[in-house]
C-alpha cells in the first residue's frame, strides 16, 4: 500500500467505518487487477480500491474523499480503451462491479432500471423474455458495464440506425462530488431545465458517479438479413456505403474491414471472408419479412453496380452469426498477429474515407508499423489498429506517435479524435489539435461547475493549456514527441 498520502491512516479508518471489509482492497495483490483498463500500455497501482454495494456507500466514500482531497476514479468493467479508469497512485478506485442488479424490467413502458455495474449484454438477456432488447451493442458487450457505457457514450455496430448510449438512456441517478444524489429523468421522453443527462453521457467519470441507469428497450426486429460483400478496391467499398445511404436506406449495421483485418479475422474465426478482397463490408438489414426481402434485393443491386467482387446474403441465424463472428472478434484476432496493438478511434465525414486511408498507409510506411483497419463504416468511425511490439525499445512511443498523427488527419478532414472510446489519458495531447484555448477553458469551467473540488477522475479528458502550449500545437515530427519529459499518460 502506498502510504504517501497525507492523511492515509485517517482516510482508511473513515472508509472502514462505512464499508464492509469485503468492499475495501488495500493489498498489492488485490490492487493488481485494477492497475490498468483496456489501454494496457499504461499501468499504475492505485492507493486503494473500494467496491461499494449501495448508493449510500458511494455517497459516504465521496464525502470522505472530498474532505481529504483524495481523487476518485470510477471504474466499471475496466474495458475502456483510452485509460479513463486508469488509477491514480494517491487515489481511490471506486469500482461499481458489486452494484450489478437489474432492478426492474418494465415491459409496458419498454424501459429497464439497472445498477451501474450491470453488463451491457445482461440487459438484453433480461429483456428478451418480453421480446425487447437494449440497442447499443459495443463489441465489448459481454464484459463492459452500463455505467461505463454512459460515461463513455459507447456505441456499437448498430448505432447509425438505433443510436448511441446518449440516445437510449432516459434517466440516471448520479452522485456528485458534493455527495448529493441527483435523480435525472426516468421513464420519460424529456426533462425540465438544462439537459444534465446529455452532459453526463460521455463525461468519463469526471462530472459525477452514475449509480443507476434507466434505459429504453426496443422490440426485437422481426427479420434480419446479413450481407457479406468483397471489393477489389477500398474506394469502391467507401462509395458503396454512400450509395446505400443516398438510396434512402439506413442499414441496421454497416461495417468495413481492410485486407489485413480480414486475414486476421479469417484465421481466428473462419467466417468465410474473401481473402482476395481489398476490403469487405458486412451489412445488416432488419424490419418485417417483406421489407427485409425487398431491401436485400435493392442493396445487392447497389453493391453490384458499385463493383462488388463477392456478395453473400445470409437469412438464417446460423450463417448470420458466422458472418458477424469475424467482425466481432477482429480485435483479439489482430491481437494474435502482433504482440501488441493500439486501437485508434477517429471519426471522419464518410466522403473523406479514401483520402484518410491513403494517409494512414503513408504513415504506416513512415513509421514502419503495420496497420489493420476496422470501421463502423455507416457512421465514419475508424478503428485503425497499429501493430507493434512493446518489448522492442521505443516501439510503444512510435505507435503512440503514429496514432496521434492519424488522429490529426481525422481532425484535418473535419472529424474528431474520438468517436466512442473517449479521451481518457490516451488522447489528451490530440485534444490540443481539436480545441483551442478558449474551448478547453470552457470545458474546465464546466468541470469546476460540476466538481468544484476536482476530485472526480482529475487530470483526465481535457488537457491543460500548459500541456497544449508545451506541445506546441501537438505537431509530432519524425515520430519524436517534443518534450519527452512531459508525462503523457
Amino acid at each position, binding site marked *: 500500500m502506498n502510504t504517501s498520502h497525507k492523511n492515509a491512516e485517517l482516510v482508511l479508518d473513515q472508509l472502514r467505518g462505512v464499508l464492509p471489509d469485503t468492499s475495501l482492497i488495500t493489498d498489492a495483490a488485490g490492487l493488481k487487477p485494477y492497475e490498468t483498463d483496456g489501454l494496457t500500455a499504461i499501468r499504475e497501482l492505485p492507493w486503494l480500491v473500494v467496491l461499494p454495494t449501495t448508493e449510500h456507500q458511494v455517497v459516504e466514500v465521496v464525502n470522505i474523499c472530498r474532505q481529504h482531497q483524495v481523487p476518485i476514479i470510477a471504474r466499471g468493467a475496466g474495458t475502456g480503451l483510452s485509460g479513463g479508469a486508469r488509477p491514480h497512485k494517491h487515489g481511490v478506485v471506486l469500482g461499481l462491479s458489486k452494484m450489478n442488479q437489474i432492478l426492474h424490467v418494465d*415491459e409496458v413502458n419498454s424501459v429497464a432500471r439497472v445498477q451501474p455495474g450491470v453488463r451491457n449484454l445482461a440487459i438484453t438477456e433480461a429483456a428478451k423474455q418480453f421480446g425487447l432488447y437494449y440497442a447499443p451493442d459495443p463489441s465489448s458487450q459481454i464484459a463492459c458495464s452500463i455505467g461505463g457505457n454512459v460515461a463513455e457514450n459507447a456505441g456499437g455496430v448498430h448505432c447509425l440506425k438505433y443510436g448511441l448510449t446518449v440516445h437510449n438512456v432516459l434517466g440516471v441517478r448520479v452522485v456528485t462530488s458534493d455527495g448529493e444524489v441527483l435523480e435525472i429523468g426516468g421513464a420519460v421522453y424529456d426533462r425540465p*431545465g438544462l*439537459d444534465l443527462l446529455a452532459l453526463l453521457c460521455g463525461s468519463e467519470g469526471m462530472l459525477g458517479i452514475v449509480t443507476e441507469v434507466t434505459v429504453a428497450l426496443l422490440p426485437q426486429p*422481426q427479420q434480419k438479413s446479413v450481407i457479406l460483400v468483397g471489393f477489389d478496391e477500398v474506394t469502391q467499398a467507401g462509395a458503396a456505403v454512400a450509395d446505400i445511404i443516398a438510396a434512402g436506406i*439506413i442499414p441496421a449495421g454497416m461495417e468495413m474491414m481492410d485486407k489485413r483485418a480480414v486475414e486476421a479475422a479469417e484465421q481466428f474465426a473462419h467466417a468465410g471472408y474473401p481473402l482476395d478482397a481489398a476490403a469487405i463490408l458486412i451489412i445488416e438489414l432488419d424490419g418485417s419479412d417483406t421489407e427485409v426481402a425487398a431491401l436485400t434485393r435493392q442493396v445487392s443491386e447497389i453493391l453490384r453496380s458499385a463493383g462488388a467482387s463477392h456478395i453473400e446474403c445470409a437469412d438464417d441465424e446460423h450463417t448470420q452469426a458466422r458472418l458477424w463472428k469475424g467482425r466481432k472478434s477482429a480485435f483479439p484476432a489482430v491481437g494474435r498477429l502482433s504482440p501488441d496493438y493500439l486501437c485508434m478511434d477517429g*471519426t471522419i465525414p464518410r466522403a473523406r474515407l479514401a483520402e484518410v486511408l491513403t494517409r494512414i498507409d503513408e504513415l504506416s510506411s513512415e513509421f514502419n508499423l503495420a496497420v489493420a483497419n476496422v470501421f463502423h463504416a455507416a457512421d465514419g468511425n475508424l478503428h485503425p489498429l497499429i501493430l507493434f511490439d512493446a518489448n522492442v525499445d521505443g516501439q510503444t512511443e512510435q505507435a503512440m506517435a503514429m496514432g496521434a498523427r492519424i488522429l490529426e488527419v481525422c481532425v484535418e478532414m473535419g472529424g474528431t479524435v474520438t468517436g466512442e472510446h473517449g479521451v481518457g489519458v490516451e488522447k489528451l495531447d490530440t485534444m490540443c489539435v481539436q480545441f483551442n484555448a478558449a474551448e478547453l477553458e470552457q470545458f474546465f*469551467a464546466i468541470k469546476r*461547475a460540476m466538481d468544484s473540488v476536482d476530485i472526480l477522475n482529475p487530470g483526465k479528458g481535457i488537457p491543460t493549456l500548459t500541456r497544449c502550449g508545451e506541445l506546441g500545437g501537438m505537431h509530432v515530427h519524425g515520430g519524436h514527441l517534443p518534450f519527452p519529459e512531459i508525462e503523457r499518460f
Partner: protein
Amino acid sequence: MSGDQTAELAAAVASAVAENRPLFIAGHGSKKAWQPELQAEPLDLATHTGVIDYQPTELVVTTRGGTPLSELNQVLAEQGQQLASEPPLLGAAAKQGTVGGAVASGFSGPARPWGGSLRDAVLGVELLNGKGEVLRFGGQVMKNVAGYDVSRLQAGAWGSLGAMLNISLRVQPIAAATQTMKLDLDAEQANALAREMAQKHLPLTATCWVNGSYYLRLSGHADTVTQGLKPLSGQLIDADAAAVFWQAIRDQQHEFFATAQAKPLWRVVTPPAAPLPDFTGEFLLEWQGGLRWLRHDNTDVVRDYALKVGGWCWAVGQLQPIDVAQARLMQRLKHAFDPTDIFVSTLDFSSAN
C-alpha cells in the same frame, strides 16, 4: 440584412458585457407564449441565416442559428430527407421559428418516441458564450466524444448558456410510405392499445388521441406499413387530410390548443403507460401516451398527478419546475458559460421550485 453576422453578434455581446446590459437571444419570437416576459434587450439572431453545408449522403446539415426552420425543412425535403423529430413551427406565418430557437426550446413533434428528440439529432454547435467568445463543439460527424457534450447541452437551454451561431444536425431519409388510421376509442382504450402496440413491430411514427378518436401514423417500407395496419379496424385517412392533421398537432394549431380557451394549457410528460388522470378535464395524448396535453386550472392537481405517475408538468407561460439540487448545479453551469448573467432566459435556476 442577412447572412453571416458572427462578428456583429460577438461585438454586441462584448459591449453588452462591458456595459452590463442583459440580453435575451431573439429569433422569430414564435415561442413567446411559452416564455414569461423577459426584461432585457434582444440579441437578434434572426438575420444570421443560411444553410452552410448540406451533404445528404453524410446525413448532416449545418445551418446558421437564425435560419428559418421552415426553410431548412424545405431544403431537406428536396433531397428526400427530414428532421426525424419533427420540431414544431409555432407562431404566425413567415415567423414560425428559427433552427436555433427550435434547438434551444428542445421541443420535438409527434415522431419523438420513434425518431428521437431534436436534442438527439444535434451533432455540433458554434456557440457565442456570455464572454463574447465564439467556440466550436462537436462537429459534423455522427459520433464524437471529444470533450463534454456541450452541443446537446444547448438543446432545451432556452439560450441561457449562449447563442448558437451554427448548428449541425443529423437528418433522416423520409419514409417511402406513410398511412394514417383513425379508430373510435375512448382514452382508456387508446392507452391500452398503445401499450399493446409498444411491444410489436409496428412502424409507428405518431399517435394522437383527441375527442374520442385515436390516430395512428405508420411510416416505412410500403409493405410493412400495409401489414402493420391489417389487424387494426379503423378508417384510413386520405394522405392530404392526414398531413394537415399531423401538422396541426405538431404546430399546436389543432383547436385543442386554441388560446381562447379559459383554462391553462399543461404539457405533462409521463411514462407512456402511466394511468390516465382520474380528475375530469380535457386532454390530448401524443407519444403513445408519453406526452399528455391537459387543460386544467388547478396547478396542485396537475402537479400531484404528474409526480405520482413519475412524470413532470409545465404550464404554458410559467417557469419550468426544476428540482432544487439540480437547479443549483444548473445555475453553476450557466455561470460556467455566462459568468455575468448577460443572457436572460426563460429558465430560472434561482427561483426554481
